[in-house]
């Protein structure tokens, strides 16, 4: 069913500063959408609001037909655990856990970490990081860390993957690997991906680009196939 956004407004501070201004759009299931814009354009705020991490000021966001502002706490946490995956610019891996244990962290919420170990190993193989399975994040490269973080985000087979500048801290080779993973996951598993990036080249790899300027949609284009 995807994400349906109507008249979304988000303001900060006192007096309120409007960061997102009356946005309305729809993201269909299985789409790979890049949200672009300059610094301060509101692209990260839009991602956090769509992903339920940041409450909206007014308007409506429906995720799979459910109004997210009306979700109960328990429902919201279930939603995040089972239907959403997050990848940030910084990996935020737990330094005291091995890479495999880090990937399995979301499954600990529902005590399914043992059952999902095979899935985790499968993801590691797909992302070519099996060799770091028993290493702690401090002992591996930045690119490998980000791939571990992506594997963690995908462990629960989420319907939506939210990525905030996932290549922001990576060199071009590692960034390319991350983007290929995104493309593959989107194509193979039909995972809906929303990726914030300021790099127009990487944004071009997505099936659709939404450009923001000062909290308003500047453009909303689909890639020509």
């Amino acid at each position, binding site marked *: 069913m995807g994400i349906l956004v109507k008249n979304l407004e988000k303001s900060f501070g006192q007096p309120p500063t409007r960061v997102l201004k009356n946005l309305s759009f729809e993201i269909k299931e299985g789409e790979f959408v890049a949200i672009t814009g300059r610094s301060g354009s509101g692209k990260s705020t839009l991602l956090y609001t769509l*992903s339920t991490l940041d409450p909206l000021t007014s308007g409506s966001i429906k995720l799979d037909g459910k109004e997210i502002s009306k979700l109960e*706490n328990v429902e919201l946490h279930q939603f*995040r655990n089972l239907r959403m995956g*997050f990848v940030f610019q910084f990996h935020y891996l737990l*330094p*005291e*856990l091995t890479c495999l244990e880090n990937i399995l962290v979301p499954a600990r*919420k529902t005590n399914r970490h043992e059952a999902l170990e095979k899935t985790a190993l499968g993801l590691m193989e797909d992302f070519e990081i099996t060799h770091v399975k028993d290493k702690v994040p401090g002992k591996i490269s930045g690119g490998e860390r980000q791939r571990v973080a992506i594997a963690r985000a995908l462990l629960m087979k989420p319907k939506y993957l939210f990525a905030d500048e996932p290549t922001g801290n990576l060199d071009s080779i590692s960034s390319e690997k991350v983007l290929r993973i995104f493309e593959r996951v989107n194509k193979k598993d039909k995972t809906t991906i929303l990726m914030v990036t300021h790099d127009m080249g990487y944004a071009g790899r997505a099936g659709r680009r939404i450009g923001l300027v000062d909290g308003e949609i500047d453009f909303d284009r689909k890639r020509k196939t």
Partner: protein
Amino acid sequence: MLFLALRQLFSRPRQTVLAILGIGLGTTAFLAISGMMLGFREVIIRQLVNSTAHVSITPHEDPVTEHSLDGFFFPGSLVKWISPPVAKDESLHLDFPQGWFDRLDQDPSVEAYAPQFSVQVLISRTKVSRPIRLMGVVASRQIKATDIQEDMVEGNFQDLDKGGFLVILGRSLGEKMGVRKDGAINLIDARGASHPAKVAGFFDTGITDIDDTLAYAPLHYVQQLNKTPGEISQIAVRLKDVALARATADQWALLGRDKVQSWDQAFANFTTVFKFQDIMRFTLSWIIVIVAAFGVYNILNMIVIQKRGEIAILRSMGFDQRDIILLFFQQGLFLGVCGGLLGMGLGTLLCLYLETIHFGGMGHTTIDHILISWRLSTYLIGFTLAFLSGVFAGFFPARAASRMSPIDILRAEGS
């Protein structure tokens, strides 16, 4: 979350060990201080209780006040004193001891009782004489109502019932008088009459005041010596449960004019000291535990600040506020429990060591080394204090962590 909590703790072994040591040493100090204070107290109490009685019944002693004679001359009469009276309306013997005997025989809470009659006499031998309290007892009853038989160091207390004017002296009194068992002594009453007696043995309660100034003799001999046959000046009562001594004494005191006192009322100065000790002990222990808890609090607080980003990512993965509280609270609990267990181990070892320290006898007391109480309740309190320090030290950082908004953290980390 226990898995993550333990991993976070073990990834900082030095901090974790220091926190556990802090709590452990606090608990050790509590156990050692409590062990010594309570050990000393238990011995004192045992000596006081056992050498006297759980409850003692003695003649009434009421102060004479300005209103004592109101209504004495005729109903409603008032007495106007030119100068206020300073006197006591007291008796040297119980008015109706048989009434008490009947009552005590029927009371199921009474283990045993012993009638006594005490007089002040001079004990003399050759040129040495000392004022003492001569207590007339029925030996067979006295050994049931008190632990005097266990305090005997020479002779048998029951020998007093064999016949003849026999006395049993405190060991230190015997030494001061230079007399041995079967030796002869003279007892001089208030009228100056001398009564020869034979020493049947010696006791040692460990309390110098008693051992220096008390002698036992057969009840009827003491009554005869005082020319007051049949009089009883005190009844020593042993209860089945010593803990009920005060309540029982208070209850019996309502039955008549006689003075009924429990052992702790009779030695009120000791109980005041014990209360003061308790206050000192708990104040000191709480200070130690609070200092240890601050150590844990600081460590957990630091971990929470360092782990802000990870808290945010956990929240984004569906872990709720309760999970985050558990993550840090469990760390506090773990430190508290480990510190408590370590403290109990170290505390036991320290107490075992302290018990071996001898400092020589103090006068004629039997206490010649550090006395340790091994009460289970002390260890339970020690462990609970350690546990609580972990609970409180863990709760506040955990609550702070759970209240962090993931989005605020991500924005702050991103900026």
